[in-house]
């Protein structure tokens, strides 16, 4: 049985990690919401962000959090190309081509990572990686707090972008009704490419944080993709608040579940939640909630 201390610690950590989970899932949620595309390489894009920060940060002598400013445009550019050249052409040709192309892309990325950087696991360390604070009697890692704050900032930023800017409105239009949007003069294919690019850019933040808090390797993509899936299922798409909520629910469930059943079951919990929710509400769950 769990002591109150363990429960509280688990809940707090889950909450903080939930912010991180949310920002990593945000890109995935956006792509699915706008283009109904299950972005299977999403995990690999996160890992790419981690790798880039891992190498660029010491090379330039910057703090990894600062290098996000450099990594984000790189990922943005790569994401744009992926959607424009590889995914756009096969969209609309049926389910299989898009799905399998995405699946293949994820595998290609994985192989490229191994070729460039070997299968070794890495982690991004800084002076403050080890520091903890005392929060109401509980020991909390400073990095978790930083991750939570940055994630919330990121979520807010995207929310403002989607609701306040012209581009954001164009994206929402294309998402709700591509045909009408096209008629209104919006180049839907370009919007798709842009959305994917933005999602990839956000992944720079998520990926770097992952690299700083956890370790990562070329094979780390799939687990993060699955977390993104769970969060989208829990929180719905198109809703920033929903994504944050989904992230927090997953984070807390994982922490408490790990404390209760054993640390090995940590990752299964998310998947079991996913299947449970799917079983209870198989249709409507992937429907849009009001943005």
């Amino acid at each position: 049985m769990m002591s109150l201390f363990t429960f509280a610690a688990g809940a707090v950590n889950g909450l903080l990690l939930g912010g991180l989970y949310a920002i990593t899932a945000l890109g995935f949620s956006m792509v699915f919401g706008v283009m109904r595309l299950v972005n299977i390489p999403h995990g690999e894009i996160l890992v790419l962000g981690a790798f880039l920060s891992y190498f660029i940060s010491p090379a330039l002598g910057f703090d990894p959090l600062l290098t996000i400013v450099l990594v984000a445009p790189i990922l943005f550019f790569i994401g744009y190309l992926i959607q424009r050249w590889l995914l756009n052409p096969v969209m609309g040709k049926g389910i299989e081509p898009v799905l399998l192309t995405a699946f293949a892309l994820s595998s290609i990325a994985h192989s490229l990572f191994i070729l460039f950087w070997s299968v070794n696991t890495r982690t991004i360390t800084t002076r403050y990686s080890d520091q903890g604070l005392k929060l109401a009697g509980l020991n909390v890692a400073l990095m978790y707090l930083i991750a939570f704050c940055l994630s919330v900032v990121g979520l807010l930023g995207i929310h403002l972008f989607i609701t306040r800017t012209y581009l954001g409105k164009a994206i929402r239009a294309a998402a709700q009704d591509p045909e009408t949007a096209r008629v209104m003069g919006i180049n839907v294919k370009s919007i798709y490419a842009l959305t994917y690019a933005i999602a990839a850019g956000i992944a720079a933040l998520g990926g770097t944080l992952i690299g700083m808090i956890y370790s990562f390797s070329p094979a780390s993509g799939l687990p993060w993709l699955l977390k993104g899936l769970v969060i989208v299922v829990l929180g719905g798409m198109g809703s920033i608040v929903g994504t944050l909520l989904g992230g927090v629910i997953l984070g807390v469930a994982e922490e408490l579940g790990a404390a209760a059943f054993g640390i090995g079951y940590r990752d299964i919990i998310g998947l079991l939640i996913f299947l449970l929710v799917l079983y209870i509400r198989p249709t409507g769950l992937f429907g849009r909630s009001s943005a």
Partner: protein
Amino acid sequence: MSIRVRTNYLVIAACFYLTLSFALAVSVECAETPKEIKIGTSILLTGKGAAFGPYMKWGYSTPIDDINKSGGLYLSKYGKKLPVNLIVYDDESRPEKAAQNIERLILKDKVCALLSPAGPPTVIPTGIIAEREKIPMVAALCPIRAFLSAGKQWNYVWDVFFDELEMTEQQFLLMDTVESNRKVALFTNNDPDGVVMGNFWSKNAQKFKYEVVYHAKFPVMTTEFSDLIRRAQEGQAEIMIGQCYVPEAIALWRQMRVLGYKPKAAFFEKGGEPAEWWKANGQAAQGTCVTGYWHPSLGYPGAKDLRQRFEKETGLPYSQHIADTYAICQILLDAIRRAGSLDPKEINGAISETNKTFVVGPVKFKRGGPDGNTCGLSSVVLQWQNGETQIVYPKKLATAGFICPLP
């Protein structure tokens, strides 16, 4: 007959012959008189065990390079010296890859003997394949009890390493020499080493009258230890003993510091052994312990020089594993020379008769019985002090004093 069915069969036939000709083209023709002695191995050059890769590579290749400089190994059956060719594949620290590599070495490259990969998860499956194909394999970096836990009588695979039965007593024997609250927290991962050692530590704790307040068991490559650490803290264990890989150990130690859990003594088996451990932690690793089976200060033939030579040739700080791998290779070469031929069965017979002192100590294999095909090395306890490992137990071999509690 429709076109579709016709072309169906055409393509099937074409595929069959295509694959056939391909496979035949790719197969190697054997020469009548052998031109070289082929030995194969699969090493963890990348992956979670990559920290140990350089030691294995150097340890396995150096005796062979040396012997090739003098023209090769003399085989009485052919009346001449033949050069030794060591074929090395990377197994990424993954058992399935290692098994594939070993199968390829045996079937395609046609090696006459094998040097093992590292660690029970890879040694056991590859050992089983070597047994099936009757190719002798000498194993390094594989603790004896885990090796024997495969549950079969080994005939073609030989192991020289420490015996966990003895190794898991060292921590308690050392702690008996200092004051503590005799409460222990165990952190073991769930690969064969972790499971075997975890069991032995639990038993030995009772035997030496220590109390295990918490035993954390986690899957390999876990990255989040906070919850486990908190429980160890709750149990107020002053002694922490763990077994895991280097990345896990680094993460665990780091998180322990974040959460403010500082035991009096910390043992990091496997993870705390290579130079990588000190490099990643810096001064934070001062005082951490790991058991060892070799140290340059032990008086075996060539021991001290081995360290100098390794550090000079590779520019890397040494590790005790250069000795085990170097010795394994020596043992194999010695056996091939004594067998005088490339016949795997004869080589295997020669290995079984090994009785000589190598750089890692005296080696003679136990024959038959539950401990068959193994040779255990005695353990000492090493402690990281200022970037180097010093022997701190037993006292008569110690090169430095035991720092306790942790600074």
